[in-house]
């Protein structure tokens, strides 16, 4: 779960964001407290706090005085938008690079994607398919 690559607090923040994105933490839900996160991931509370603060600064979490930390309204939408922007660089580019190394053309890629997503051969109306379907088809 925790890897060596990026700072711990960043990973903590991302895991909270993941929960928001996949819907387990809804807008206005109470977010896990610093201590809960620290205990769950077995890390120092200060590190967990750093991650939480990062999310507060980003506007994803909001602190309600006397009550606790909550998911900000519109957080999920904001995260989805952010992730879609980097989706191309983060997921598609490596895909293209690896495909090129294996000698697969972009058309080959499209065919592979369609096969896996179980989408029938092109009917030229990209606007009709709901934006979320291709994402669901991709293996995470």
């Amino acid at each position, binding site marked *: 779960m925790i890897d060596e690559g990026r700072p711990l607090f960043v990973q903590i923040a991302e895991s909270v964001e993941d929960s928001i994105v996949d819907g387990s933490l809804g807008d206005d839900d109470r977010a896990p407290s610093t201590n809960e996160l620290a*205990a769950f*991931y077995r890390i120092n509370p200060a*590190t967990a706090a750093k991650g939480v603060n990062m999310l507060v600064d980003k506007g994803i979490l909001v602190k309600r005085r006397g009550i606790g930390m909550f998911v900000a309204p519109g957080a999920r939408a904001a995260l989805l938008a952010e992730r879609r922007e980097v989706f191309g660089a983060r997921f598609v580019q490596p895909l293209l690079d690896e495909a090129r190394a294996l000698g697969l053309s972009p058309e080959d890629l499209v065919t592979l994607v369609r096969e896996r997503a179980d989408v029938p051969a092109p009917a030229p109306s990209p606007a009709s398919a709901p934006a979320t379907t291709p994402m669901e088809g991709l293996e995470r």
Partner: protein
Amino acid sequence: MTVIEVQHLTKRYKDTLALDDVSVSFEKDTIYGLLGRNGAGKTTLMSILTAQNFGTSGSARVFGEDPYENARVLSRICFVRESQRYPEDALPTHAFRMASLFFPNWDQAFAEELIADFELPLKTRIKKLSRGQLSAVGVIIGLASRAEITFFDEPYLGLDAVARQLFYDRLLADYAEHPRTIILSSHLIDEVANLIERVVVIDGGRILLDDETDAVRSRAATIVGDQAAVDLFVTGREVIHRENLGRVASVTVLGDLTADDRAALQASDLDVAPVSLQQLVVRLTQHAARGAAKGDPR
């Protein structure tokens, strides 16, 4: 707020320097990892801070005062040694009762929870306890003392992996409820890497590193790939470890990698692997040892 201030502390034993011009400070409510090899000076430093040993020169101030014979300061500190000696015939309960007499924040209920957690046999004399059980006594005293500054000097020798995890979990949970300064010395760096906020590495009596854990983690990277390309990339950087397998080289360098660096690496088809805290500390100390062997005037 600084609770421990060490300035130019030196400890000389005949012709060896156990501590060599050590300057470091420790803040309130933080968990520190004091890392280093055997004989690096960790225990010596902690002993001097608790007035159980004395420096040859330099100063060590705890809560702004000299800890020597200072009950006001000492009552707020707890130091559990790696090989703590207990009154021979005492039972663990005696040891805990004595601890409760001297630590103002002692929590007996917490101690009892820990006794149950570690399955400590209370009717067995301390001198007859196993190594692990003996460590458990020390750990329980350290945790239940709730001292404002608590030192743990490799207290979990003899504890198996399950018991160690128990210690880390209890430590974190209690620290969350009752923040204090905890200084943990350990060999098992990767095990404690997630607990500690700051890392202090001591080697040959000198401080090699004193920084936030996250900063330390991002401080080094291992570049892997074709030897020529790797060598080209690492010119001008501080290399702390190098391995070769055929034409593939794996070189660990210090220093942050910028976005440009990462682009260059990708372009040269080189891989970047993260360096775990343990690897980093090991490489750093090896590097320092090599430097010392070459007569490096550090």
